[in-house]
């Protein structure tokens, strides 16, 4: 087998893994959009905030320590304890639920029946607030997150592929974990939405507020529930990204990568978010590999391109917008006239 094909296969697999991480962020968007029609610009920041909080709790950081120290002249930084990862994740989830409740109480409860663009603007405001709030609460330095997930090259895949192709594939253990977690998460979310009473209520609210009220569904409860779910997905995404590249504020920018994922998969489809993520992940890695390779693109087109990863996803999304605006799995928009 020519070595380009073997390299290509490795790139393909790594693309799938990267796609899973995009999909995790996109999933949070889909949940909120499905249930309340809000495009939550703050989803990426929520992932950042969740990761910051998790690190803060694990390390026993004193929240608002800079503020407290500046005001009282103290020198507090750490409580001096370390919280085990599992407990810290639970506590972070409590924080995310509280945040969901507050967001609904303070912002969205007052914006019921407003235009989608107004709700969208509100989430932009929320994104900037939350970013600043996270900064004041936990500090802005890059933090290391380690909740005990395996990291580094998977030796089994490395050895197996070496035996077959005489070349060992580099697949990160963390990516494999992320894939499994994402798969479980999607199964759980789909089962929840389709078969549980709360899931049915969630779909009902997404469909028609008035009708939902008339059968006895509290809109507020459902919204808090959905934002908490999105908070949970954000936490999972935050853990994966944070473990991979450290908890840093550029994490909130991954939300932008979720946009093309959503355009591909459709804003209203949970499986669509996953498939969209995978297509973008694989697409951008393979495209980069092909276009930057002298042996392939150089031979075929007579030129090579580099750093295509920065724009490939957006161009692909643009093409989709032209030919299939509802995405691969989105609900088709049919206006009756």
């Amino acid at each position, binding site marked *: 087998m020519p070595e380009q094909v073997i390299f290509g296969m490795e790139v393909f697999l790594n693309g799938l893994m990267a796609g899973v991480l995009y999909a995790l962020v996109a999933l949070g968007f889909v949940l909120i959009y499905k249930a309340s029609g809000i495009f939550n610009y703050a989803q990426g920041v929520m992932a950042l905030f969740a990761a910051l909080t998790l690190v803060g709790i694990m390390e026993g950081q004193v929240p608002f320590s800079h503020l407290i120290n500046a005001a009282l002249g103290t020198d507090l930084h750490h409580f001096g304890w370390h919280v085990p990862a599992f407990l810290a994740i639970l506590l972070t989830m409590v924080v995310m639920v509280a945040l969901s409740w507050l967001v609904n109480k303070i912002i969205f409860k007052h914006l019921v029946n407003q235009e989608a663009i107004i709700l969208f603007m509100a989430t932009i405001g929320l994104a900037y607030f939350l970013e600043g709030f996270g900064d004041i609460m936990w500090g802005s330095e890059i933090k290391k997150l380690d909740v005990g997930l395996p990291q580094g090259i998977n030796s089994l895949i490395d050895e197996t592929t070496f035996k077959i192709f005489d070349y060992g594939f580099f697949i990160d253990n963390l990516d494999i974990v992320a894939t499994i977690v994402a798969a479980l998460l999607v199964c759980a979310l789909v089962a929840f939405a389709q078969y549980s009473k709360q899931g049915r209520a969630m779909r009902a609210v997404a469909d028609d507020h008035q009708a*939902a009220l008339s*059968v006895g569904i509290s809109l507020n409860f459902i919204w808090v529930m959905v934002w908490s779910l999105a908070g949970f997905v954000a936490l999972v995404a935050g853990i994966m990204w944070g473990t991979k590249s450290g908890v840093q504020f550029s994490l909130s920018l991954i939300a932008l990568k979720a946009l093309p994922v959503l355009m591909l998969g459709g804003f209203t489809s949970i499986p669509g978010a996953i498939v969209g993520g995978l297509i973008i992940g694989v697409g951008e890695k393979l495209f980069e590999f092909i276009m930057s390779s002298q042996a392939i693109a150089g031979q075929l087109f007579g030129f090579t391109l580099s750093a295509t990863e920065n724009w490939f996803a957006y161009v692909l999304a643009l093409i989709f917008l032209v030919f299939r605006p509802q995405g691969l799995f989105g*609900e088709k928009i049919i206006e009756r006239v």
Partner: protein
Amino acid sequence: MLDASEGYTTDDGRKIGGVVMEMKNITLRFGGVVAIKDISFDIRQGEIRAIIGPNGAGKSSMLNVISGFYNPQEGEVWYQGSKRPPMRPYQVAQQGIARTFQNIALFEGMTVLDNVMTGRIRQMNAGLFSQALWKGKAENEEVENREVVEKVIDFLEIQAIRKTPVGRLPYGLKKRVELARALAAEPSILLLDEPMAGMNVEEKEDMSRFILDVNDEFGTTIALIEHDMGVVMDLSDRVVVMDYGMKIGDGTPDEVRSNQAVIDAYLGVAHD
């Protein structure tokens, strides 16, 4: 006969019970506009109670007051023997008052079966955890509720479209699905907002038959709004007539028909 506090017997021999809901001096304003002005009436166990009136008489507003979508500025709503505090619509629904809408409010993306199942939300209490495990209470509950829902679906003759997304159905069937959803809640009062609006003669006859059957079979108390006089007179036991937000008549269809104020409101009155 009608003012007997322990109910009455209809012409066709049905026993009507005591008062389930009583509206006392309800006044509802929107800014300077008075939609309902000092109206009182009651709804009794097992009867079909109609609210009629010309366009803009305040009928829908009255229904929205009963179902909690509007809270009146003045007056009291008494339900099952106690005064009801101002409530949100979903709380009213949880108390067992189900309704349909004039312009149909269904979950268009969901199947007929799912739509009707949402009517059972009030009766489902299993926790998320037991639902996830699909054990014990959750399993029994789903089976029991499913049985009620299937019964309602059979009753309203919509078996053939159980799995069809509601968005694809024609208007008349949507109205029937909406009725099914309200009925699935096993409501103590069923509110129907213009159940026959926009239907052809055949559909109207079907709907009238279903309303009568529901009342007969399940003993459901029904309050409905309609402006088709003919339909109302055939269906209902007692009728409230509204005009310009005021009550101008209340009684059996025959009494109402011979009421001069009602005749004036419907046919117009000569000004001299």
